[in-house]
């Protein structure tokens, strides 16, 4: 009965799902399945597959349903389903959305020997755990840059755009802040860093922007030459694209490089919180971190040490987005709406507004 109702709910949600349907992967259990762990993830399945398989080896009767979904949708879908959400674990790099879920009381604290020894920067309240980090990079199609040298900072990028506007018109691609959770997070973090982003945005607006929701799509389009510059792309996707497309070069801006963390939380309503906790333990173990590193993500902890040490060296321009309530203001609905309106306005109606 319960299962049927869940299935119906699931079906109705599928039907009601917005534009981009979630992609689902089922990892069957090795022996007759007793439990099914449901993971909502804004990270591609292929990056997490080795880790999940390893987890299943430890739990042969466990099946895994992996729902690959955009970070903004993940947030909204979970809230829609609540309190009957089947999700046992929410994985997303939209740090502000994840933190808001915790702040609003949707998460369940998890404490184990492993999580209790975590550095304070990589968890919040024992309800939100970082397991990988992503440097935020700008990617260029070397061929589309023409004679210009590759910029190394936002100032140089801005100078480049101003120097050769015709070349880069309609050639810049970035996240759509209105539909992508990560995109919004990065834009709002950028706007907190200073005036540079405003100027860059004006320049982007003047040249028209292509907008997308997926780092991989954007990288493909840049590689194909449909765009010359990809702004604010996730480092691990870039890193796996670079060998495939030799025409691509990546820049970690040396004015500042944002660093975001991929966060896991166990919903309060999770049907299998203990299993979810064990998976978090595995993710944060040396072995789990090594598995994540093998599939191309940047583990948040130094893999070799028994102690859990933060792998990110905050040196020079690296700006780690901190896991604190300071992530909340951009998620205020009024603020968010205002920001998105202003952002969309400036990138689409830029020509009339720029150069005051």
């Amino acid at each position, binding site marked *: 009965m319960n299962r049927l109702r869940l299935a119906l709910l699931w079906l109705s949600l599928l039907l009601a799902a917005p534009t981009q349907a979630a992609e689902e992967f089922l990892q069957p259990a090795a022996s007759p399945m007793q439990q099914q762990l449901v993971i909502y993830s804004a990270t591609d399945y292929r990056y997490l597959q080795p880790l999940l398989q390893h987890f299943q080896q430890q739990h042969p009767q466990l099946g895994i349903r992996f729902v690959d979904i955009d970070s903004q949708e993940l947030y909204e879908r979970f809230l829609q389903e609540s309190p009957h959400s089947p999700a046992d674990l929410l994985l997303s790099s939209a740090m502000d959305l994840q933190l808001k879920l*915790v*702040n*609003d*009381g949707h998460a369940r604290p998890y404490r184990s020997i492993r999580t209790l020894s975590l550095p*304070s920067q990589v968890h*919040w*309240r024992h309800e939100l755990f970082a397991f990988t980090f992503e440097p935020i990079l700008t990617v260029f199609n070397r061929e589309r840059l023409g004679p210009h040298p590759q910029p190394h900072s936002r100032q140089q990028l801005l100078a480049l755009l101003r120097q050769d506007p015709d070349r880069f018109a309609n050639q810049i691609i970035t996240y759509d802040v209105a539909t992508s959770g990560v995109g919004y997070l990065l834009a709002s973090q950028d706007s*907190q860093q200073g005036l540079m982003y405003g100027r860059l945005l004006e320049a982007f607006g003047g040249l028209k922007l292509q907008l997308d929701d997926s780092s991989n799509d954007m990288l493909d389009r840049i590689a194909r030459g449909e765009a010359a510059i990809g702004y604010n792309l996730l480092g691990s996707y870039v890193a796996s694209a670079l060998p495939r497309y030799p025409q691509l070069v990546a820049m970690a801006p040396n004015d500042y490089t944002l660093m975001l963390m991929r966060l896991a939380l166990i919903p309060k309503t999770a049907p299998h919180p203990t299993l979810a906790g064990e998976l978090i333990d595995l993710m944060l173990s040396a072995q789990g971190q090594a598995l994540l590193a093998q599939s191309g993500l940047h583990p948040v902890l130094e893999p070799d040490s028994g102690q859990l040490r933060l792998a990110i060296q905050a040196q020079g321009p690296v700006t780690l987005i*901190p896991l*604190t*309530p*300071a*992530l*909340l*203001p*951009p998620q*205020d*609905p*009024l*603020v968010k709406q*205002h920001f998105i309106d202003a952002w969309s306005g400036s990138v689409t109606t830029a020509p009339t507004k720029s150069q005051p």
Partner: protein
Amino acid sequence: MSAVVNHHPHLRRRLLLLSAVVLIGLSLLAMGLMVSYSKKTADRSYDLMLNSAILQLANAVRHDEQGFVVDMPVSAFATLAQAPQDRVFYRISVNGSFLTGYHSLPTAPARTHSQQQLTQQQPDFFDAHFSGEPVRVARLTRLNTERQPFDEIQIELAQTRLAREQLKDEILYPALELILGLLFSALLLLWLGIYYALRPFTLIARALARRRPRDLTPLLLPVPKETLPLLHTINHFIARQQQMLERMESTTSVAAHQLRTPLASLRALSENARDEVEPAKRQRLLAGLIEQCDLLSLTVNHLLNQAMLDHRFHSQELLPLELNAIAKKVCLALAVPALQRQVELSFEPATSPLWIQGDEIAITQMLNNLIDNAVAHAPAHTRVEIVLRTSPAPAILIRDLGSGIPPEEREKVFARFYRGSQHRYLGSGLGMAIARDVAEHHGAGIHLHDNEPSGLEVEIRFNTYRSTP
């Protein structure tokens, strides 16, 4: 016996219990004060942070052509991140209607101020419960004066209490440890103090228990000054026991001697009487034999009396007695035997009743002995006077017209078995000694004076008396 012991209060336990109750009470009070103090201090520190954040938030609300907007200040929330593990909630309302934030945040208790509000300089703080956790809420009301009429903007900023609780514990626990430490050291000191205070009693008891039965030397113990009176009292008691024992020993040996001599002489007299053939001489010997028997009988009587009185002195309470009545009774009893010796007794009572605390049998015995003595020493056809008087001191006077006692012998007659330089009459040598023992036991003095025109006056002078019982 053991039941009686069980009813004795345990002084040590009581002292400890009482002081422990007081100390624990004080400690609990101190702990209570520390709990509220630490909560207040933690709240005050983190309220400053909340205060600064809410002021920033208040400045971020403004009105533009699209209506009210909030330039949500990230810095305000970064300030709140000084309590890094705490969740943050806020609600912004304009003119009473919800603008943004957490709609269901609990409302503050009503303000006591008047309706005419100004922009608040400092927010109000209160405690509430929200989203499953206790929270601290700050509320600030600000007037937006850009429009007419003014808009009232109300900002509420709430934060969970984790950091506050942690700070509270950091203040509280060392204080609690200190209080507990002090409590335990105080109890320990108290226990030691009580132990040392009561130890001399144990020492004395142990020393007494260890004594051999014949050992009546004073106890010599290094007890503290406070316990010295007890030790002195015990030693005094031992000394009295010692005296009594010595007196008993000497009395017993003297009495044995005094009984053996007359018995030997009785035997000698009896043998002589048996062997005497001449009737006149035999008559004389038999008369001597009877006299010796009387003397022996008197001695035995006195010895028994003395033993009886000694026992009474140690066992009987002194009761109110009227001396006139006792003296009269003795005189009446002795009048007939005196007349047989051709001596008259005259009795003159005091003008008012003479009450003393005394032992009636002992007093009677004393008067008996003294009057008997006086009668024995009085020549035939004379009078023995017994006079009671109240001034200058209450006294009983017994006067005879005999030969008196020379001054140098007056002290000796009180010694046991002293019979004077010349055997003037047949006596045990104990009568005067008994009389003096009785007088001393009643705190009275016994004095011998010359009588006019001749003879002896015995005066028993009492120190204390009353005219009523």
